[in-house]
Every structure is written in C-alpha cells, then in structure tokens.
C-alpha cells in the first residue's frame, strides 16, 4: 500500500485529489496539509511514500518545504511530486533542483495523476519528455566554463557522455538503446553508472546536470 500526503492551500483542490487518490486500491491518503509548515510536519510524522506538493502556498511555500524534506535524512526517502498551475515556472524548476522527482499540472487527468504517483513511488523520476525538458531548458543556468562546474562531467567516458546527452533529450532507456545501437541492459547500466558518477538522485537531476554543464544545450532539438 503506497502512502500519500497531499499539500495544497486550496481546500477544494486538496479534497479533490484526496478523493482521486483514495479511490485507487493500491494508494492511501495518510494526511492533508494546507501550507508548507503543515506539510513538513506531516511528512515527519507519517513518513509517506509520496507527497503531492503544491508549489505556491502561504506561510512556507512548496519549494522550501521540498528542500526541508529532502535535506532531512529522516524524511529524504519521501518522493515529492510538485503540483503547479503553470508549466513554465521557475519555482518548479527550483523544486526539481531541490530534489522533487517531477511535477504535475493541477488539471492533469485523474488516471495520469495516479500513474505519476505510482511511478515516483517506485523510485523512477517523472520526466515527461516534452514539458519537463522545456522547463529545464528554460531555467537551467548557462553553462559556466569554469572548472568547478565541468568537473563532474570530465570523469565520464565518451559513451557515458553520449548517454547523458540522450537522457537530457528525454529518451527512455529503451530509446537510448536503439539510438546508440546497444542492448537495453547496457543502456540501463550506463544510466546507473551516470547516477553514481554524477552523484545524482534520479534521471531528473541527470537532465539538470546535463544542461548546467553544457552537455545538453537549450534549443537543440
């Protein structure tokens, strides 16, 4: 049974999501929060698998709450799924950098919402290629040619750098495998090595690193 906490400052949005999530046999709502403070406290108390986190809330916003949850060892295991009204939103991007596993538009269809919760609960990153990539493209810092930011990527093999570039384009492991003419298992291994070498939480962070170090460049299809 996957446990979920829902945080949103609007009652009707909160309760709406609660009914949707509660209607799934494999999901259970263990708490609702109306602002960032309540969200953090609730996560500390209930250690849910997933938090649906509205980004703009009073008191403490979703971004800061995400930071706190991910920074605390006791709660870092909880996956954060950010909710937003607008897809191109700098706050959302910052939340991804802070450790959110992905984001959803609030008007996402219920079935898609449930699928997303299951995906991040399983430890995968939610990386809808088109939207998430656009977000990262939009807000990733321009690659700084100084040593510090290039260092992580310097230790990659050529193959690994290629794979990183494709991950940044939003390709799945299977797609990467076919693109680079390798077996899916090999692609998966490369991605795992990338996660280790670059000290990344998940695929999302790989994409961010790719843009910030210039391996991937905004605008190139």
């Amino acid at each position, binding site marked *: 049974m996957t446990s979920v906490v829902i945080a949103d*400052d*609007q*009652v*009707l*949005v909160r309760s*709406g*999501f609660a*009914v*949707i999530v509660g*209607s799934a046999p494999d999901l259970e709502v263990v708490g609702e929060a*109306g*602002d960032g*403070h309540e969200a953090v406290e609730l996560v500390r108390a209930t250690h849910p698998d997933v938090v649906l986190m509205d980004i703009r809330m*009073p*008191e*403490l916003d979703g971004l800061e709450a995400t930071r706190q949850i991910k920074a605390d060892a006791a709660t870092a295991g909880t996956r954060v799924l950010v909710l937003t*009204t*607008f897809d191109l939103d700098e706050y959302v991007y910052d939340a991804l950098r802070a450790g959110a596993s992905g984001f959803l538009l*609030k*008007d*996402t*269809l*219920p*079935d898609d*919402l449930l699928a997303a919760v299951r995906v991040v609960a399983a430890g995968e990153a939610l990386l809808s290629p088109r939207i998430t990539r656009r977000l990262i493209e939009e807000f990733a810092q321009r690659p700084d040619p100084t040593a510090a930011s290039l260092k992580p990527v310097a230790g990659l093999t050529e193959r690994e750098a290629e794979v990183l570039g494709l991950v940044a384009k939003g390709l799945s492991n299977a797609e990467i495998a076919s693109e680079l003419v390798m077996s899916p298992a090999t692609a998966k291994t490369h991605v795992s090595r990338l996660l280790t070498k670059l000290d990344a939480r998940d695929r999302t962070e790989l994409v961010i690193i790719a843009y910030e170090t210039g391996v991937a460049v905004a605008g190139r299809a």
Partner: protein
Amino acid sequence: MERRTLVDRLKSIDSRVFDGLLTLGVTLFGVGSQFVDNPANDPSLKETDALALLLGLATCLPLYLRRRQPLPALTASAVAITVLAVSEYATNNLPNATLFLAYAVGAFAPRRQAIVGLGVVVLAIVTIWLSDTPDLDTNGMILNIALFSAAWLAGQVVRARSLTAAAQLAEAEERAEAENQAAARAVAEERLRIAQELHDVVAHSMSVIAVQAGMGAHVLDSQPEEARRALENISQTSRTTLNEMRRLLGVLRDEEGERSHAPAPGLDEVPHLVDDVRRAGLPVELDIAGPSEAVPHGVELSVYRLVQESLTNIIKHAGTASATVTISCTPVDVDVEVVDDGRGAAVKNGHGGHGLVGMRERVAVWGGTLDAGPRVGGGFRIHARIPFGDAS
C-alpha cells in the same frame, strides 16, 4: 515646433494687411505733404524735387517691415529723413513714419536691438539739430526726443505685457500636460492591478474546477456522493469567480466608457459585495454602523478591499462556514471585523498568506492596525482599525 494653426495664418495675413494699409496711409500723408507744402512756408528751405521725393519715400516705405525687421526699417527711415533735413528740404509730415517705427522697434525688436534703435533715433534728431536747419530748433529737438522716446517706451510696455501673457500660457499648458500624464499613469496602474487580480482569480478557480471535475468523473460510479459534491463545488466556484470577474470588469468598463472619476468602490458598495458572496453560497451577516460621511475615499476603498479579500479567503479555505462582517464608523476612524466559523485556518501565526500581506499593507498606509488569527471556537477572525482623524 507646432504647426501654425489656421488662426495663426489668418492673424499673419491680418497683420500684413494692416502694415500695408498703415504704410500706405503714412506714405500718402507724408509724401503728400511734400507736394502740398511746396514751396515750404519757410523760404530758406528748398523746393521739393525728385531727390526730396525719393528721400520721402525712403522715409515712409520701410514702415511696411515694422514687424519683421523693425531695426533695419527704423534705421533706413531715420537715415533718409536725416539726409532730407540736413539737405535743407522740408520734412513736413514725414517724421510720422519714423515715429511709428520708433514704436515698432520698442514693441517688436529684441531688447538689444530696441536699445540700439532708440540710439539711432536720438542720433538722427541730434544730427538734424546740429545741421542748423531751420526745420528743427533746440526746443524742437528736445520735444522730438521726448516724443520719440515716448513712442519707443509705449512699444516696450506693450511688448512686456504680451511676453508675460505668452509665458503664462506656456506654463499653464505644461501643467495641464503633466496632470494628464499623471492621470493616465494612474489609470494604467489601476488597470494593470485589475488585470493581475483577474489573472489570479481565474487561474485559481480554474484549477479548483479542473480538479473537482476530474475527481467527479473519476468516481462517478464508485462514489456517487463524492461526484455530487464535486458538482456542487464546481457550481459554487464558477459562480463566485464570475461574480469576481464581473466586479473587476465592471470597473474596467467604467473607465473606458466615461470620464474616469476613480470608480473605486466604497462603503456603499459593501452590501452589494456581500450579496454577491451570499449568492455564491456563503451565508454572511452584515452590520454597518456609524456616520460614514467623514470617511475619506481612500479609507473606504481599503475597507472594501479588506472585506472583499477576507470573504474570498473564507470561500476558498473555510469549507462550509458562515461569516459575519461588522463595520463601525466614528468621526476619527473605521473599525472592520470579519469572522467566520469554518474549519479553515490557512494562516498560522498571522503573518503569512498573500492576501493578508496585502491587507496589512493597505492598513499600514493609513497608520492603522490589523489583527488576524484563529478564533477560540474555530474559524478565523480579521480585525482592522483605520484612523483618519484630523492631523494635528
């Protein structure tokens, strides 16, 4: 550089016609007198001949340029009549032309040129006197200097007056322009604010409607009761939003339709606001007491916005609830209280919340106070006091 208006063009034709007629008249008068008094009364003066006529014309004709080139015209005229007099011809009525030109130099020439012009005239008179012509004796010289100076001074006075008038007009136009710009800027800022409010309202409510609609459809069969509640929520939310939009857009239309006389809502519009909220599904009790005439417009607007923001928050966060709005006016301040008994306390320690920050700012501008916090029995209370007494 402004385009010359039709009036300006007519005026310039007007002045040219006037100058032309004046010149004509003075020339006829002046040169005519050269014929009539011929030979002159004084036998020691020469008879009018071709040269005299020429000089006579040269004295009078420059008058036509009195506006455009007053100093050159005066100089030409003064030289001509000096030569005429020194050559022992009779001057008769010819000096009138030079007299007119003395006025013209005072009225139309810039300062320095005007002073030079006066000097030219005095020089001419003195030269004629020095030449010992019987046409001008010492008394005559003094008289003429006085006369020509008077004409010159008259010109200066007229000039000073018209300059002041022109300067004042320019200043008044500048001020009016600045006021127009300030007003336009205020209107633009208000419209921007309204647009932002509209945007926030629509974005929030559409999110709610999307979630509730999605939820309702999702559990229509498995949890029909929830689906029903979803529909009711959608109904209430969309109604409230439409009302809010009507209010905001109503303000916009006023500004476009008529002279903008600050269509800011005040205490009179609060009952209307409360009615809209009731129709959106939230029961509200309203109590307004005390004399409201002394309350400044700005304070009224702040009170209205405070009530509006509070009620909106209650609808958004407090679930099922009812609210009470109490407004009391005294000659020195307004007391506003909005309480609800719903289950929402979206704000913990009374500081956060975008709406609350805005409320605090509105109240702080007037040096007022705002308390916001949960009530003991449940629900939330917002209380503000806005003073406006005479600053002493």
